[in-house]
């Protein structure tokens, strides 16, 4: 097979090449035909970043063995429009702001192109169904739908082509819906993310990861892997020349596990080889002897005396406790007419940016160790890496490649160290691209939380005191836990002017997948509890949910829970606007859904029952009869 020639027509050009270790059509197009518009988001057909046309039908190229496409006519996102041009649909994506990080966008453009090719008059329901195989994590899909409908109408002549034009300068460029400058590169598939980049003589890295949640590393034997033909180097913690350790707040995580592993998926060694396939095979040849240790998997258990200790420096397993005290909580509860207690919990959540982690490192002609990666914090990563590799800071360089979604998940320097060490050891450029599974397994999540809530209120809805305690599983390493606990604590009780509060948040080490930075940094977990709790209280007091919030909201001059005096406060205006905007029918939250009259307005969508395309056929037939 390696030598068998495959013949395809790709974007109108004849391609005759052997498979050369690129077993899936996606890999072949990217690595052999050098078209990187189709991307790998999941490798399992679940996300659509890899969609391409094969003989006129849109398919997920990560599911297609390369040889299946032998003789086929293939069209990728790069082939939709002439060089330097955009199709009407691509222009519509540009116009409506349908791309954000852009990583799903080539696939999304392909799915939308297919939808309009299959049915140029597809209605919104059908469009949504036809885009149903493509996940977008940034946009909330709304602007994408808008783009597809706009393109459809322009293509059908229902709207003039000028509908795709930019809005113009107006009076000012501030407050102006200037089209995204990066959109053309995203909708056309031209933008290169780290995983799309190649360098001459580049090595491919694969990482050996811990199969155990907690174990002592007795020995690591890399000799067999190193002996495999095509393997250039294997690195372990022994290759770290400087002070090993990184983290957003505490530097408690080594580049690769040192004496023990603390979670499943932690990096233990990294192989770099001439091909991705060889590197992968070499992983199986590394022998690591582990002595399994008992693990701790529940933060409350980890807080008990005598619990398994995850890090020696933190014998109580507490990463961070943030206390906030204001007023006199005892007195506040004593003054209350009712006291309401409840508990709340939230789950661990994966960032699921469509771009899995990827990076490229090299040592340049001046000996500067350079890492190109979608890092959300190149400034801090440079600092940490310079200590780890023991080089002056101006001999370390981080370049931030376009980030295919971050949401906080790319703030941790979990792989850049391995790339730098390998580049230094081999003198060759090296690239690492995570699989989706690897990304899910090894990177930080949103902190799960358990909240105990106690609130005292007067009969008129005024809150007299709150006690709030949140315990969060920080997982095996500190990452952003400290900051997340701080922000959760500060923001926990919401935009309410409260005289007496007692807040405690705890981030705890366990042997679970680490938790880290994730859009809202703890605020979502904490305010989920507050906003649920307020509705419970409102029901008990017979108050409308807007009203109970209004009776307690902050005003100019209010002291926050951390006793900061506020200079500007917009919550009153926000509540008033929202109430009018959604046509809210006033009433206490007594599960009155069945009798509300503000439901089902034109600003809601229809309930989704699948099969929009047959309904259209039925409607058309009905029309024929009539």
């Amino acid at each position, binding site marked *: *097979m390696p030598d*068998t020639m495959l013949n395809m027509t790709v974007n109108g050009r004849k391609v005759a090449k052997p498979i050369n270790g690129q*077993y*899936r059509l996606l890999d072949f197009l990217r690595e052999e035909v050098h078209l990187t518009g189709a991307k790998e988001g999941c*490798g*399992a*057909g*679940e996300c*659509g970043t890899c*969609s391409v046309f094969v003989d006129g*039908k*849109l*398919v*997920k190229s*990560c*599911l*297609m*063995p390369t*040889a*299946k496409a*032998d003789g086929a006519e293939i069209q990728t996102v790069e082939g939709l429009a002439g060089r330097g041009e955009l199709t009407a649909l691509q222009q519509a994506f540009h116009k409506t702001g349908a791309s954000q990080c852009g990583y799903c966008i080539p696939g999304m453009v392909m*799915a939308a192109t*297919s939808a309009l090719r*299959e049915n140029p008059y597809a209605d919104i329901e059908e469009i949504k*169904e*036809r885009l*149903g*195989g*493509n996940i977008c994590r940034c946009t909330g899909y709304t602007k994408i739908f808008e783009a597809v409908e706009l393109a459809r109408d322009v293509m059908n002549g229902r709207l003039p082509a000028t509908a795709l034009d930019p809005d113009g300068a107006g009076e000012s460029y501030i407050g102006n819906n200037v089209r995204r400058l990066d959109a053309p590169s995203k909708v056309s598939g031209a933008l290169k993310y780290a995983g799309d980049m190649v360098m001459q003589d580049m090595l491919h890295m694969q990482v050996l990861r811990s199969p155990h949640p907690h174990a002592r590393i007795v020995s690591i034997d890399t000799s067999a892997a190193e002996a495999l033909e095509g393997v250039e180097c294997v690195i372990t913690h022994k290759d770290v020349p400087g002070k090993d350790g990184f983290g957003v707040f505490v530097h408690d995580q080594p580049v690769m596990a040192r004496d023990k592993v603390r979670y499943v998926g932690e990096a233990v060694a990294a192989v770099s080889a001439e091909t991705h*396939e060889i590197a*992968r095979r070499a992983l199986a040849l590394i022998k690591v002897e582990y002595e399994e240790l008992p693990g701790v998997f529940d933060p409350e258990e980890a807080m008990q005396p005598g619990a398994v200790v995850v890090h020696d420096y933190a014998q109580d397993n507490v990463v961070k406790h943030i206390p906030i005290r204001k007023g006199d909580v005892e007195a506040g509860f004593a003054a209350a007419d009712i006291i309401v207690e409840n508990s709340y919990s939230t789950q661990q959540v994966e960032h699921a940016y469509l771009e899995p982690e990827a990076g490229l490192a090299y040592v340049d002609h001046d000996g500067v160790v350079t890492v190109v990666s979608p890092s959300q914090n190149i400034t801090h990563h440079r600092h940490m890496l310079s200590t780890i590799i023991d080089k002056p800071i101006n001999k370390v360089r981080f370049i931030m490649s376009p980030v295919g979604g971050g949401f906080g998940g790319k703030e941790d320097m979990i792989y850049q160290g391995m790339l730098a060490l390998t580049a230094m050891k081999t003198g060759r450029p090296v690239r690492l691209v995570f*699989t989706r*599974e*690897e990304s899910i*397994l090894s990177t930080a999540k949103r902190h799960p939380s358990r909240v105990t809530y106690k609130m005292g209120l007067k009969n008129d809805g005024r809150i007299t005191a709150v006690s709030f305690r949140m315990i969060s599983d920080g997982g095996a390493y500190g990452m952003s836990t400290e900051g997340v606990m701080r922000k959760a604590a500060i923001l926990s009780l919401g935009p309410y002017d409260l005289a007496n509060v007692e807040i405690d948040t705890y981030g705890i080490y366990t042997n679970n997948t680490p938790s880290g930075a994730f859009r809202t940094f703890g605020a979502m977990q904490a305010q989920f509890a507050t906003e649920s709790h307020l509705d419970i209280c409102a029901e008990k007091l017979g108050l409308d949910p807007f009203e109970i919030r209004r009776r307690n909201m902050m005003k100019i001059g209010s002291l926050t829970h951390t006793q900061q005096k506020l200079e500007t406060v917009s919550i009153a205006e926000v509540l008033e606007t929202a109430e009018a905007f959604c046509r809210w029918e006033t009433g206490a939250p007594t599960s009155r859904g069945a009798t509300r009259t503000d439901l089902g307005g034109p600003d809601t969508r229809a309930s*989704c029952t*699948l*099969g929009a*395309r*047959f309904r259209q056929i039925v409607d058309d037939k009905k029309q024929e009869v009539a």
Partner: protein
Amino acid sequence: MFTFDHYLCPKDLREALEMIERLPEDGKIIAGATDVVPYAREGRGGDIHFSTIVDLSRVDEFRGYEIAKGKVRLNANVVFQDFLEDDELRAHLPCMPYCAIWFADDQVREQATLAGNIANASPAADGTPPLLAMDAEVEIARLVDGEVRYRTISIDAFVHGPGKTRLEKGELICAVTCRSMKGYGGSFQKVGQRRSLVISKVSAVALVKTSADGRTFEDVRLALGGIGPVPVRLTDIEDMLKGQAITRRLIAEASVIPADRVASRSRVEYRKRVVRGFVEAAIEDALVACGAPMPTEEQREAAHA
């Protein structure tokens, strides 16, 4: 990671059978490859290397379908998208468009074959319940002393456990033949965790034929998926309904019964509760597809009072 040494694309059945007769233990047959390729990943099968892959997608005999004598013969390479797009198939297999629209997405459906779906024999496979309801038979071919030999086996016997079928080494599915259900109303219910790219927690299919006046059940066919090791046909309920006057109350009564067929290892209570409602909804939707009026919420509530 999915890797292989040799990739074979037989052009006809005999060539395919010859290839699979010689297929080594670490070889693999694929059709659409939508089960096989993503299986070779971490958390599932891990890295899988196949010495030889036999890709059936170009086998001439496996293309298309034939309709004759009240039967629909679906050759092995019919894909789920065909059930949505082909007018003939929609008329003869009226539950299949609803099954297909819930299946994966437009792109996977272009590749995913019905034969691969039943050969994979997942308890959650969406193709199997409709086939049970349509009395499908699986046509299997093998080479015996260089001759192509066929055998036929009913779908309920063919799939007999999670991932288990009666297919033996050296055999291929050539076709699945079901009864034409032209004139029936068909429906398919499915629930998972979202509305696209969703694996069934429970699925239910119904095919209903009413008397000419629309008042009695002439025939009813029902099956469930996702509720145990294999999908099941609900012949007892079908018998309860056949020949009876169509009333909401009767449907409601009949729908309560199949909950005890739930034999999953997880989410048992959830599935039981859903099954009760799904059988009823499936019958109602199938009746609507026959031209019966949609029951109102009030009628449904009255039936349960």
